[in-house]
């Protein structure tokens, strides 16, 4: 097990569109385990493979308070329904910023699990929001894309400055 490095906005690699996983094998399972470890350590409630610079369609989420309800979705497909609601979102790749984003109230996800079995799950609440957020990453999309360009530019400048200071 190992902690993976999380890419931060505006890193261009976050814009990569991920490719479907062909076979769920041990290397995928190892990646999933490392992604969970990285997510829990952050601490975050969801992480997409894109964020750790692996461009395959894999996401992990756990929105429970006790951090004991992990889900890994491989090649996830979403069907959205319900009203659109606003939630304050933050992202491990955009550390320190929280902004309201509108998402669908309900989502049905079809995907493979770590054992390569097909799973289908109906999601609502924070879990539905989180899975929509992570699936966006696989398309190279970030939650800041939903904000006004003014806000996005401000966030980018602040993070670029923070990165300069760190280096």
């Amino acid at each position, binding site marked *: 097990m190992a902690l993976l490095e999380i890419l931060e906005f505006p890193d261009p690699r976050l814009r990569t569109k991920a490719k479907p996983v062909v076979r769920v094998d041990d290397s995928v399972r190892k990646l999933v385990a490392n992604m969970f470890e990285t997510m829990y350590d952050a601490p975050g409630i969801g992480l997409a493979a894109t964020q750790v610079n692996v461009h395959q369609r894999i996401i992990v989420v756990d929105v429970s*308070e*006790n951090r004991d309800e992990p889900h890994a979705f491989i090649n996830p497909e979403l069907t959205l329904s319900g009203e659109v609601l606003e939630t304050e979102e933050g992202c491990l790749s955009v550390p320190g910023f929280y902004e309201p984003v509108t998402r669908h109230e309900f989502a049905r996800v079809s995907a493979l699990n770590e054992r390569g079995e097909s799973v289908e799950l109906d999601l609502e609440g*924070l879990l539905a929001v989180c899975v929509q957020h992570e699936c966006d990453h696989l398309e190279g999309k970030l939650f800041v894309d939903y904000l006004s360009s003014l806000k996005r530019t401000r966030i980018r400048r602040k993070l670029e400055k923070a990165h300069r200071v760190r280096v």
Partner: protein
Amino acid sequence: MNAPANDRARAARHLVRIIVDGKTTDQTFGLDPVKQPSPLCQELVFGTLRYYFSLNEAVEKRLSKALRSKDLDLRLLMLVGAYQLRYTRIPDHAAINETVNACRPLRKPWARSLVNAVLRSIAQDVDDEKTECSFELPDWISGRINSAYPAVAADVMNGLLGRAPMSLRVNVSRTPPAEYKARLDEQNLSWQAGLVPEHIVLNTPVPAAQLPGYAQGQVSIQDGGAILASGLLDPERKLAQQSNCRILDACAAPGGKLFHLAESVAPAELVALEINSRRLEHLCSEAARLGFDSIRTLQADATDTSWWDQRTFDAILLDAPCSGVGTLRRHPDIKHLRKIDDLADYQQLQLSLLRNLWRTLATEGTLLYCTCSLFQEENDNVVQQFLNETHDARAQLISAPVGQRTEHGWQLLPRPVNDANLAASVDGFYYARLRKISDNQERPG
């Protein structure tokens, strides 16, 4: 995705799990100290539970129509807001603003203006109806306290509403108490002597990690009332001198009393049972911190003997599951979770534990029966019934520096915290010591 950042929304979600789903604070926060919610979130949850009844009244009377049942989280959020306005030093405008913002992470942005209006109205009413539900207890609990302790009922109820001081138990197998007190002095932590030499009370609480020697297992956090258990089980220190002494702690988690026995009596063999695997895991990690690798821990049900190797114990500590009403100041969730009917269930469980464990006790052995209840139903009545049906059981006279004698044992009573005498501020424990006499001894009287 990053975890939501709003502590008010998180507090409201935890409260839903407690008030609606009937979970305990331990269950909703988890036992892992590293993954605990932020201190502010915990403070908001505990504080709202503590003053729930009057806060709820203040909120409800400002709602022109009742909320839909799926909007219970909003009512609890408004209670969290009212708690901040009345009982914290958070400025009103910040409390209102942050609580209104919590509507978003709760995914109910439409409620912002409602939450805002209710909280503003509460903030303006400074001398609102604070006194009406002054003890913040459900009727069945306050009624019972009034009839059981008529002379001191108001004191006891005030004690249950207060906050427990930070009470420490020095690990006497590692550090002499005097030495530990000197280390506290070095760190400028002011303290008061407790009920027994290894008991110390801090005048101002600090996080556990800041206690000298905490990571090295030199000290634990434990209520003064619980620290008395070890001395009540072995008042003349006979067990401590006996070679091959075998002691059982039948309901061991979280393990405070167990570890105190390991530290102060240090028997040749110490066996700990715990039925709940998560609580047992937590107990084992505490054992590791304190360096006790010789305690035999078993995940087992103490109402049967499938775990028992047929070798009797010289002493048994039975810290029985109970309503826990004596610990309300630490666990304000209890007043919302327990119902009057629970008392009969606890009583049955307590009796079946006593009956079963009695078989594993050696002749001339001692069983210390303990609850953190204030109610006779779980205390003297249980002991009375057990004595009636058990010819070789005798209750022994016991006493402690605080509390009062009961028919068969000793009752500690929570009292309002008095800065000059923090040590006397204990949770409401009950203790009875039962001795197993040899069969050929005549029953007196």
